[in-house]
């Protein structure tokens, strides 16, 4: 059953004449007021130079192109630097790996020449004391070798090079 929304006279409320006929018109007027307040001008008064929007498009695209070129050059530079850095890194890694692999095999398998090379290359900071400690056997061998030089050879050497002259 359709409900009757018409005004009941029992509650005593009254409406202005033609209220509902004018309601829509009044509502639309209020909405327009919100959208376009009566006292405010619609135009902001700003303007732009002639052909500005054509020119600005060209400027923006030129800026982007410049940026792309700059990015390319920077990339090239970084690439060059990266290659050098990579080469250095690889060399260092190989060095460390070689050094490590040798130390792993223990000191006993290292020859004096190998160790000397490693020290000369700067991979191992050692002093003569450390070397003496490690190669005590070889050092005693050296004394044996010196015994193989005959006394005659020593006298000959001393007669040629007068060691006492250096002291004067």
């Amino acid at each position, binding site marked *: 059953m359709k409900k009757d929304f018409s005004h009941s006279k029992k509650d005593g409320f009254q409406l202005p004449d033609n209220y509902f006929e004018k309601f829509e018109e009044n509502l639309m007027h209020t909405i327009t007021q*919100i959208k376009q307040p009566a*006292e*405010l001008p619609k*135009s*902001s*008064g700003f303007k*732009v130079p002639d052909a500005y929007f054509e020119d600005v*498009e060209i400027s923006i695209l030129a800026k*982007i192109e410049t940026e792309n070129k700059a990015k390319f050059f920077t990339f090239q530079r970084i690439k060059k630097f990266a290659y050098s850095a990579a080469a250095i890194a690889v060399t260092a890694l190989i060095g460390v790996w070689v050094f490590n692999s040798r130390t792993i095999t223990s000191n006993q398998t290292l020859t004096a020449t190998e160790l000397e090379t490693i020290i000369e290359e700067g991979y191992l900071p050692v002093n003569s004391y450390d070397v003496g400690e490690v190669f005590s056997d070889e050092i005693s061998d050296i004394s044996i070798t010196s015994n193989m030089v005959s006394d005659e050879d020593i006298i000959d050497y001393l007669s040629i090079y007068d060691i006492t002259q250096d002291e004067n």
Partner: protein
Amino acid sequence: MVEEQLFIAALQNKETQNRAFQQLVSQYKERLYWHIRRIVLNHDDADDVLQNTFVKIYRNIHNFKGESALFSWMYRIATNESLTFLKQKAKMANITDEELQNSLVQNLQADSYFEGEEIQLKLQQAIAKLPEKQRLVFNMKYFEELKYEEMSQILDTSVGALKSSYHHAVKKLEDYLTED
């Protein structure tokens, strides 16, 4: 929507990027310009900010995930660029943001790219007195006729709060313009 997704894909693809970007600039330059101009007021400043905005869009288009409309995302960049520009300008001149707003409006009288009558100048003076958020909301709703839903995405503010800001702004402006 599908069309926009295809356009975004073209902007993010190296092969098609330049042509798509050219289309983007052509399509949005005027709308973004006027949005920026109403914030910074001066044409030369608006020109600088517009160009920086597009450069930023170009640099960051690969990070655009499509969580909002492309248009909202660009408006957000333009808004942030404009506000940052004004803050830097105030800092360089060693004045407050309010002082800068007053100075910008005063300069309009001698600006060859402002041809407003007395009422337009007075409106700009009144807008300059609004808090930053109300100023943005008023310009976007009144002059740019953006929908509240669009503004909500751009300014990351609820529709209710935007409506409230707009009505407060309109009331203040009407009061200011009719107080004489």
